[in-house]
């Protein structure tokens, strides 16, 4: 409960939302799905700013590029036919692995990727899909790549009074394949490890690969070592096994109540190995 919040404002467009955030500064709390705001009890918050009415709650396609508004609910993404057709449905799978049905009905894409909690599975898929992130602030709008957006925690990447407005994903060209796997102790639990891979083939060899691991650090990260092994090579079982082992060696994972660090590193190898193999198989079917 936010006991000192006396007002809730309902901006009608993104410019108005940014103006309100500028005016109220640290006294304002942005609400989208609200699932984390409800557990917040910051006494400094006097004003709530509800972003769900600024018209950014739809999924649209233009020239092969899909645009997802920041207030699209995770369940909408999990069940959208167009999104299911992108990169072998890896974003749909990732969205479908978030929490439970009522949580997916509430949680928004924007809240999920800006907060990147340990239960935020979509950022892992979005990073593998090389998504674009559009931000809007007092100085206007700017667009970041997934690598830039998740370089640090997105809350540090967003500037003062800046909001995430849209996420863009594009259908890859040519012979490509994607896969996402969340590995958790139960269907509802947070990931011990999740991994997502996009692979492109040029003839027999891999021409591009994005291998992304989540669940081990605060933000998802690309295993550049695994990518180096894959790109330029023929994707034999041995090559894919070496890439998965490289991802394990690159993993920095702390232990916790769910699992110790060593187990998590070993699971990175297993899960990364599976997604690489699945994505490669799907890409081969298209080449």
């Amino acid at each position, binding site marked *: *409960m*936010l*006991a*000192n*919040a*006396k*007002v*809730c404002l*309902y901006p009608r467009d993104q410019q108005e939302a940014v103006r309100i955030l500028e005016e109220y500064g640290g006294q304002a709390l942005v*609400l989208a799905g*609200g*699932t984390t*705001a*409800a*557990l917040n009890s910051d006494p400094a*918050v006097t004003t*709530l700013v*509800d972003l*769900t009415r600024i018209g950014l709650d739809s999924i649209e396609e233009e020239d092969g590029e899909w645009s997802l508004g920041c207030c699209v*609910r995770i*369940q909408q993404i999990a069940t959208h036919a167009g999104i299911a057709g992108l990169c072998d449905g890896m974003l749909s799978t990732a969205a479908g692995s978030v*929490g*439970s*049905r*009522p*949580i997916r*009905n*509430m949680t928004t894409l924007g809240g999920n990727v800006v907060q990147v909690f340990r239960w935020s599975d979509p950022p892992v898929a979005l990073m593998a899909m090389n998504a674009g992130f559009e931000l809007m602030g007092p100085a206007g709008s700017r667009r970041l790549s997934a690598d830039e957006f998740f370089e640090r925690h997105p809350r540090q990447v967003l500037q003062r009074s800046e909001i995430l407005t849209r996420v863009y994903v594009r259908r890859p060209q040519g012979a490509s394949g994607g896969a996402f796997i969340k590995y958790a102790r139960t*269907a*509802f639990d947070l990931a011990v490890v999740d991994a997502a891979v996009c692979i492109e083939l040029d003839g027999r060899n891999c021409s591009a690969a994005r291998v992304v691991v989540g669940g081990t650090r605060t933000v998802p990260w690309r295993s550049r070592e695994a990518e180096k092994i894959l790109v330029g090579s023929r994707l034999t079982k041995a090559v894919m096994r070496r890439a998965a082992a490289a991802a394990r060696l690159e993993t920095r994972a702390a232990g916790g109540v769910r699992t110790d660090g060593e187990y998590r590193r070993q699971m990175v190898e297993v899960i990364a190995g599976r997604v690489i193999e699945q994505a490669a198989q799907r890409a081969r079917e298209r080449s």
Partner: protein
Amino acid sequence: MDIHVEVNHQPLVWKVNPGQILLDVLRREGYKSVKFGCGQGDCGACTVLIDGQSMRSCLLLVGQVEGRSIVTVESLGNHDQPHPLQSSFVECGAVQCGYCTPGMLLSAKALLDENPKPDEDQVREALDGNLCRCTGYKKIIEAVLRAAERMRS
């Protein structure tokens, strides 16, 4: 501030602090079917329908529901005229202690409103956010499937 809502098709104006939790406000306003379980979005006892979608009232601030339509179990049926879901829950033995039942009924209602002919997997998916520590779920799932069948005929 004033929050305008429709609860069970009845338009209301609440004078509240927008940072209050919707669950607390609903119970204070007399909607006692909405239960407090874990208070952090895990158990589903506080499930309500907001514009037809199952959501956790313990994770919503009341400011967020301005202009929205809320449905609680109070609108489903009563002792003399139960909703088909309520009668099938009773017949199948899907209620033991009863604490999770309002949330279960609403998640099931949201499913049947959207999909009148769900299969067992779809029922499980729709109820995946409602924990029950008594029944073992089997009878709840049977009850939802039986209600769906009855509502179709």
